[in-house]
């Protein structure tokens, strides 16, 4: 695993380091998009954060139960979903970059791709839920599944909401409401979508991997 890692890692790090010195319109601004969404984002992150810590500390008291139940999770689908969401987020970044250069058509296409990835996430997640529910697992099976299902369903609903928001942004982009100068709406939707991604980035290792 180490050899290809270096191959990726070097150009990637280089790109990142270059990037931070590139942008000069820096450091005095508010977060991108409408600030109202950021209040929402910070609040949602707080709710998820408390839930994550509740999971972690409850696990500390029930290590055997959590480790045993964790084995029944489908780690592949969790990992694939992580990749799906990351990629979807990346597409949204490209959509925003496109509209910033005034390329409306590309913006629409990248957004559509991002939403499609969201749909893929939903499909995989539904398959995962279906498997669990048909195995008779519910919120009340044990504490681990209570957390697993609450966290993933809560996140799942955020994915749906995020797709709804992106769909709305797509619709407006398609109608030509955004331009290189005026694209706060895209930034707002994008910020929310990245939050959904960010939450999953913590959730996946915490619930599926750490043992």
């Amino acid at each position, binding site marked *: 695993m180490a050899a290809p890692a270096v191959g990726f890692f070097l150009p990637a790090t280089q790109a990142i380091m270059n990037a931070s010195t590139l942008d000069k319109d820096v450091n005095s601004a508010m977060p991108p998009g409408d600030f*109202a969404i950021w209040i929402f984002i910070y*609040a949602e992150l707080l*709710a998820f954060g*408390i839930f994550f810590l*509740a999971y972690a500390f409850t696990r500390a008291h029930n290590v055997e139960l959590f480790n045993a139940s964790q084995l029944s999770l489908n780690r592949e689908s969790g990992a694939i979903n992580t990749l799906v969401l990351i990629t979807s987020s990346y597409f949204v970044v490209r959509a925003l970059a496109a509209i910033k250069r005034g390329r409306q058509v590309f913006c629409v296409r990248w957004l559509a791709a991002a939403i499609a990835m969201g749909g893929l996430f939903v499909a995989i997640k539904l398959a995962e839920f279906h498997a669990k529910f048909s195995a008779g697992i519910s919120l009340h099976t044990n504490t681990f599944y209570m*957390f697993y299902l609450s966290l993933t369903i809560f996140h799942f609903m955020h994915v749906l909401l995020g797709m709804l928001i992106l769909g709305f942004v797509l619709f407006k982009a398609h109608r030509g409401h955004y331009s290189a100068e005026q694209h706060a709406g895209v930034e707002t939707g994008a910020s929310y979508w990245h939050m959904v991604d960010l939450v999953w980035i913590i959730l996946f290792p915490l619930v599926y991997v750490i043992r």
Partner: protein
Amino acid sequence: MQYKSQAVAKPYFIAAIGLFTGQILFGLIMGLQYVVGDFLFPEIPFNVARMVHTNLLIVWLLFGFMGSAYYLVPEESETELFSPKLAQVLFWIFLLAGAATVLGYLLVPYATLARMTGNNILATMGREFLEQPLPTKVGIVIVALAFLFNITMTVLKGRKTSITLVLLIGLWGLAVFFLFSFYNPSNLVLDKYFWWWVVHLWVEGVWELILGALLAFVLIKVTGVDREVIEKWLYVIIAMSLITGLIGTGHHYYWIGTPESWLWFGSVFSALEPIPFFMMTVFAFNMVNRRRREHPNKAATLWALGTGVMSFLGAGVWGFLHTLAPVNYYTHGTQITAAHGHMAFYGAYVMVVITMISYAMPVLRGRAANSERAQVLEMWSFWIMTVSIVFITLFLTAAGILQVWLQRISATPMGFMATQDQISLFYWLREISGVFFLVGLVLYIASFFIKGGKTVSA
């Protein structure tokens, strides 16, 4: 007063203050019964006094909300009320129904009252805060719907502002969730589960919208800050209230037979419930600091700021104290709950109604603000009532902590009544604070009758 029909608010405000006084008197009776158990027994048993105390609170707050809406909506919508006549008729219906209900509680044994009022047809009585006989409950629905019709029609024919929109959503929610009071299954767990859909979704849900709208209205008036700014924050605050408060209902679903998962949902989300209240405090102070005018009504500004602070303390801090399931396991159903209830109701809803009255009443009486002497007295009453409620809360909290310790945590737990004897000192202190509160209230009422000094004309 910009619109003639706003005048219908006046009797509502007067009735509200009158019933408020009744509520406090019965509160003092109950407080005394806590330490002198047979006081007024068997004429007014504790449960009767408590029904009157809590139902008067609900009814006078509803009077306050309705009066506030009648005052606020025409001014915001920039049009006369759809039907001032209807508002006047509803006032008398509601007042008479309320008075008849209270007299029923006081004069007839509760079981007889239940039989007389058709409780056997549809049993809804005998549940905390929903003790009203069936005709009263139906009456509340009818009055509420007629009131909502009046208000909604006014908004529809006039200017639509965010404040009226939020107020309307809050008031409609109030009416809709009250409908759950007619659902009383024989399964106690289900009964309790949906009982909270009235109680919690009122006070930690839709009432917060009403609170936010009223506060925003007064802040616009007394600070002159741009409406855009205030309405924006109004939306953010009430969004936070519902985001945290809806699932936050779970903090009532710990020990009533509902599944364990609620221990987590309730704890996580209700732990966030202080956020909107904190934002409200910051918001109120911010707006007053950024004020563009010096409004002559200093008292109203003081009440508005007080609402921000006291609702945060009472609902936010005192709620958080015992909202987490592991804490609530020990504090559930003790004087801690009573402490929180008193400060939260006073800080949020009592104070916002008084804020509204304090701002609107002088205008209704033909001046922008009361004379300085009247205002000084009103501000005295503010401090006396507020400090009294703080002490009531502190003493009840102390009583609660001791109660939890003796009755629930101690290795050799004491019985309920033995514990009560141990904490009677705090009940005495609470009762004394209650007397001070009454003094504050009397001064508040007196401030309406103070003449002289220079008055500012409207």
